[in-house]
């Protein structure tokens, strides 16, 4: 078998995953702190204030990376949900469920920072425009997944039921997005495009991109920390957990 594929398969086994995640976590934490420190310092102190919006524009360095993460994490959960439903991979179930509260937190941060930003720039904390509304619906979808997962007793069955809900949500999200846009278009159009020229100056774009990377490292770190605990709890009856807890060696 292809060695990379073999390694990937092995990672699906809880003890291997637990040890690997334990080794990876300190690195991820260091990377989070470094990139987050640089990004925040650059964004909050070095980058210029906006001509029109003044200092309040600095909220962008929190708001936009959080908004990107809120959607990226849902996509991550959907990929893991497919693995959980089709191949019944234990680790995929755990990863999907461990990601849900982090995704909900990023969505919440997006909404709160957005409404604080809306006050000085639009003159109101909340308007019913397309992107705000679809973020709010996304938050409810996250709450639904978390609620369903915690309502079913059997952990593995709960994870698979919630995975199906995630996939239903993935089919629905573009429809919700489109319907909400159809319903109202008041928000400014997107200013950062992957293709073509971005309408943002480089002095603001760089700290924004660094913050986007920092949030990804943070997500990876928080995800591994949460899923390690979930692995231990689910596997608490297994021999490898008992062996590890009883051994005197320093734990990974």
């Amino acid at each position, binding site marked *: 078998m292809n060695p990379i594929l073999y390694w990937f398969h092995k990672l699906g086994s809880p003890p291997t995953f637990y040890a690997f995640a334990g080794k990876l976590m300190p690195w991820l934490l260091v990377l989070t702190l470094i990139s987050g420190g640089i990004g925040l310092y650059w964004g909050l102190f070095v980058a210029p204030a906006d001509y029109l919006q003044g200092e309040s524009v600095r909220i962008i360095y929190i708001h936009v990376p959080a908004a990107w993460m809120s959607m990226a994490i849902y996509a991550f959960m959907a990929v893991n949900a497919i693995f959980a439903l089709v191949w019944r991979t234990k680790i995929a179930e755990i990863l999907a469920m461990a990601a849900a509260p982090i995704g909900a937190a990023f969505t919440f941060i997006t909404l709160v920072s957005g409404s604080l930003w809306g006050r000085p720039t639009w003159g109101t904390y909340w308007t019913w425009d397309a992107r705000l509304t679809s973020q709010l619906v996304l938050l409810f979808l996250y709450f639904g997944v978390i*609620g369903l997962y915690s*309502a079913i007793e059997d952990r593995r*069955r709960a994870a698979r039921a919630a995975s199906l809900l995630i996939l239903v*949500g993935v089919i629905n999200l573009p429809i*919700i997005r489109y319907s909400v846009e159809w319903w109202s278009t008041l928000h400014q159009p997107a200013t950062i495009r992957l293709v073509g020229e971005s309408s943002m100056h480089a002095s603001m774009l760089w700290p924004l991109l660094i913050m986007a990377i920092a949030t990804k490292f943070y997500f990876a770190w928080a995800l591994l920390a949460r899923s390690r605990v979930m692995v231990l709890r689910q596997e608490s009856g297994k021999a490898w957990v008992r062996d590890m807890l009883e051994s005197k060696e320093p734990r990974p």
Partner: protein
Amino acid sequence: MMLTPSIAVLRRDLTAHWRRRGELANPLLFALMVTTLLPLALGPESQRLAFLAGGMVWVTVLLAGLLTLDGVFRADAEDGSLDQLLLSPAPLSMLVLAKLTAHWLVAGLPLTLVAPLLGLMLQLPQEAIGTLTLSLLLGTPLLSLVGGVCAALTVGMRRSGILLALLVLPLYVPVLIFGAGAVDAALTAQSAMQPLLLLGSGLLLALGLAPLACAVALRLGTT
């Protein structure tokens, strides 16, 4: 030949509902009462009510339908007939489609039929009543199909009231937007064709996908 088991399930469900026909009026009474409360809260001015009527009828119907959703699979799960359906050699998604059709016939369709009355109570202008009924006719089966998936996910729990609402309501957002949007378009003398066509295409999509998702959810709940 392939449809025979589905028709049997449909007939059985309709018979069971007919035996307890007193319960069928409950969602309708709920919708009527909510519609009575709305003018009391918003004030009796005809113009203001007419302006909001389309959306309010849609929200009322949606909530009334939500109340009936928990029962779609619960009774069957409790008396064991759901296990019989799961064991049946007939494709589960077709049986589920029959059950959801039965649910729409006893909940969605009656609500659609009283909707013109609700609209009149809220001073909805005559010319928009037709669009309201048409939008509900396309929208309520969609509510049953999408709601059925969530009802199947929660069937293993003893009580699922609030959780079911939490799962279902975000998924209902597009239906509500296009349904109420169609009535709004009719009120402002625009063409309601676009939202109605979008509702129809959503219904087709859900007809294809929801029974399959529902079947997977039911199997997850029992293994």
